[in-house]
C-alpha cells in the first residue's frame, strides 16, 4: 500500500472515480477478508450494530445474495427491499423512498436500479453510504472489482495484461466498470462485438475496438465474455441469437487463440451455447466460479471501507 494512503470515498458509485491506489487498497483489503469465508465459523464482529439495506429495483439473485452474505459474515444487520415490495409501485419517488429509509438511520444502502445515475442521485439525499450494485447501463463497480481481484489472484498483477472483452459492450455495465478499472491499472483492453452493440467513444477512452474475433483474442491474458440480453426487443440490434452464437460466441477454438494460460471469465448468468460454449465455461481455464467467490470478499471490503475503516 502507498505510504500515507487514506481511503476517502464515502460512497462507491462507480469505478471511474476510483484511483489506482483506491483499487489496490480495496483489492488488498478483500484479499485479507477472503479467508473468513473459508473458516468453519464464517463470521467476524467487524460491522456489528451496522444496518445495511439492500434496495433492489431490478431482479438480482447473485449480486444481492453476495452482498447479503458479505454483510452477515461481518455481523451487520441486513434488510432486503425489492421492487415488488417497495412503495415505488404506489407512485413514491426514489427521493422520497430514500428519505424515508434514511430516516431509519441505516449505515449503508446498496442500490440496484434500472436507471443510470440513480445511485448518484440517492447519495445526495441520504446520510448513509451508498454502494452501487448496478445502475442501468452505466456501471457495476463491485463486479469490476471482483473481476480485477480474480485476475490479480491468478496473474499476480493488473498491469501489462491484454484483456479481451467480447459481446454486448453497449448495454453491459460490467464491461463499462471492467474497461475503466483495467485501463486504470495499466492493462490494455480489446473489445469485439456486433457493431450495433459497440458504444461510441471507446477509442477516446483508450480501448482498441477490433474488427474480428482473432484480433481481439490473439495472445490475450483474459477473455471476458458478456451476457447477451435476450429480452431487448425494442431495437433491431441482432438478427438472431443463432447468428450471434455462430459469429460472436466464444468457442474452444476462439479460446485457443488466447495465451495458453489465459483466464476465461463471465459475469453470469451465462447463456450457455450462445455467448459462451459449455466446454469453455467449464474448462480448466475458466475462473467463473472464482469470480463468484471473490465477489463476497470484495463486497466485505467495500462494506468495511465505506463505514470508515481503513
Amino acid at each position, binding site marked *: 500500500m502507498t505510504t500515507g494512503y487514506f481511503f476517502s470515498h464515502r460512497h462507491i458509485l462507480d469505478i471511474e472515480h476510483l484511483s489506482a491506489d483506491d483499487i489496490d487498497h480495496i483489492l488488498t483489503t478483500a484479499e485479507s477478508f477472503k479467508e473468513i469465508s473459508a473458516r468453519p465459523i464464517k463470521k467476524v464482529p467487524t460491522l456489528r450494530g451496522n444496518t445495511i439495506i439492500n434496495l433492489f429495483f431490478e431482479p438480482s439473485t447473485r449480486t444481492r445474495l453476495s452482498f447479503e452474505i458479505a454483510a452477515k459474515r461481518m455481523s451487520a444487520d441486513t434488510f432486503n427491499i425489492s421492487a415488488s415490495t417497495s412503495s415505488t409501485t404506489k407512485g413514491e419517488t426514489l427521493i422520497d423512498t430514500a428519505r424515508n429509509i434514511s430516516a431509519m438511520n441505516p449505515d449503508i444502502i446498496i442500490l440496484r436500479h434500472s436507471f443510470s*445515475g440513480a445511485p448518484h442521485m440517492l447519495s445526495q439525499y441520504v446520510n448513509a453510504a451508498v454502494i452501487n450494485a448496478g445502475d*442501468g*447501463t452505466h*456501471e457495476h463497480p463491485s463486479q469490476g472489482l471482483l473481476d480485477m481481484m480474480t485476475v490479480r489472484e491468478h496473474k499476480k498483477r493488473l498491469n501489462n495484461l491484454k484483456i479481451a472483452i467480447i459481446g454486448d459492450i453497449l448495454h453491459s*455495465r460490467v464491461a*463499462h466498470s471492467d474497461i475503466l478499472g483495467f485501463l486504470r491499472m495499466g492493462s490494455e483492453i480489446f473489445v469485439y462485438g456486433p457493431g450495433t452493440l459497440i458504444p*461510441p*467513444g471507446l477509442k477516446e477512452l483508450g480501448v482498441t475496438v477490433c474488427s474480428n474475433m482473432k484480433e481481439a483474442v490473439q495472445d490475450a491474458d483474459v477473455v471476458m465474455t458478456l451476457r447477451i440480453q435476450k429480452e431487448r426487443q425494442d431495437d433491431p440490434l441482432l438478427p438472431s441469437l443463432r447468428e450471434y452464437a455462430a459469429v460472436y460466441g466464444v468457442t474452444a477454438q476462439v479460446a485457443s487463440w488466447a495465451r495458453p494460460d489465459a483466464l476465461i471469465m463471465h459475469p453470469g448468468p451465462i447463456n450457455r451455447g450462445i455467448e459462451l460454449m459449455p466446454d469453455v465455461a467449464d474448462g480448466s481455464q475458466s475462473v467463473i466460479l472464482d469470480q463468484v467467490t471473490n465477489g463476497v470478499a470484495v463486497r466485505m471490503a467495500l462494506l468495511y471501507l465505506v463505514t470508515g475503516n481503513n
Partner: protein
Amino acid sequence: MPTSLLIKNGRIIDPANKVDCIRDLLIVDGRIADPTAVPPSESSDSSEIQEIDAAGCWVVPGLIDMHVHLREPGEEYKEDILSGTRAAAAGGFTAVACMPNTKPVNDSRAVTVLILSQAEKADARVYPVAAISQNSQGNALTEFGELKANGVVAVSDDGLPVRDSQLMRRAMEYADDHGLLVISHSEEPSLSNGVMNEGIISTRLGLKGIPTAAESIMVYREIALAECLGKRVHIAHVSCAMSAELIRSAKARGVRVTAETAPHYFTLTDEAVMGYTTNAKMNPPLRSEKDRQAIRQGLADGTFDAIATDHAPHSMLEKEVEFDRAMNGIIGLETSLPLSLALVREGVINEQKLVELMSVNPARILGVEGGTLSTGAVADVTVINLTLPLPILKSRWSRKARTRHF
C-alpha cells in the same frame, strides 16, 4: 396630454436603419418620435417628459424571443403567461412567441383567444404559435385561416416532430395561403429514443444517446420540401454542425429557409450532463464541442437568423428525478441576453449582428411589428446596461420555474 419618454445619451444600435451612434431617443404615445423634432427641453411643458439616463448603455429595438413555452393553459404550476412575460421583461425581451404544446394544445381559436386575453396584462407582447396538426397528433391540419385571423403568427407542432412528410408538405402549402410561418421541430423519432447526445459522454454515463443524424435528417426533409415547393420554412432550435451545414448550403441555393439556435447550444456541451445533471437534459440534446463551435460559426456567418431560447420551464417535480425520467428543457429568458452578449465580447458577432439575431430578424420572420427604431415605429425598446453583474442572481429571478442551469 401626450405621455413622453426621453432615453438620453445611450448608444442607439438600430441595424434596420443602419444607425449606431450616441444620441437621445424620444418616445411619444408609445411610438418612436422624430429625432430631428424640437428637443423636448425646448418644448412648452418639459415636466411631462419622463427621462432615463442611458449613458454607457445600449438602446436597441426591443428583443423578441421567437420560441418560448409559457405553459398556460394547463401547466400553470410550471409557468404562466404573467410569470413568463415577467421573466421575459427581466431578460430584456419586449415580445415572445409562445409554442402551442399547452394543455390543451393551442390548435383552436378558443385557446388562442385565452392566451391573448391573459397577455393583455402581461409584461411583454405575446405572439401565439398554433399547432400544425390537431392536438399535435400529426394527422389533420388545424384551421390556419381562423387561427391567423385571431392573432396566431406561426404554426408548429413544437415538442413533437411532424412524422408524416405529406402532412408537412400540406402545412407548408396551406400556411403560405394564410401568410403563416411554419416552424419545424426537426427530429426523426425512430432515431431519437435517447436522453442525451450520443457520444463518449453518453457511453461514460451509460445513458442512451441521440445521434445528430436524428435532427439533420429531418432538417434536410424540411429543406427538400421547401425547395421543391418554393415555400417557406423555419427550423427551430438547431443544435449540431450537420444541420448548420445543411441550412447554410440551402440558403446559398436560394431556398426559403430560416433558422434559429439557442444560447445553450452555443454555450454548453454534453459535458454539462456529467453527474446526471437533469437541468442539462433537453431536446435536442446538448452536443459536442465540435457542434458548439459550428453553431457559433453559423451565428457569425448568417446561417442562423435568430437566437431563441426554447425557454422550457419545469418544476422540481419533473427535474429532481432519475435522469431517464426527467423532462426535457431549461429556462432561458433571463440568461439569453447575457449569454449572447458573451458572443460579442468574444468577437464571434458584433453588436449590430446581436440586435439582428435577437430583434430585427425575429420580427421579420414572424411578420410582427418591432425590430426597428424608425420614426413612427412601435416603441418597443430595450436598454442594455453592460455593467450589470453576471450571472443573474437567483433571488432576483421573476419566474416560477426553479430549475436552471446557468
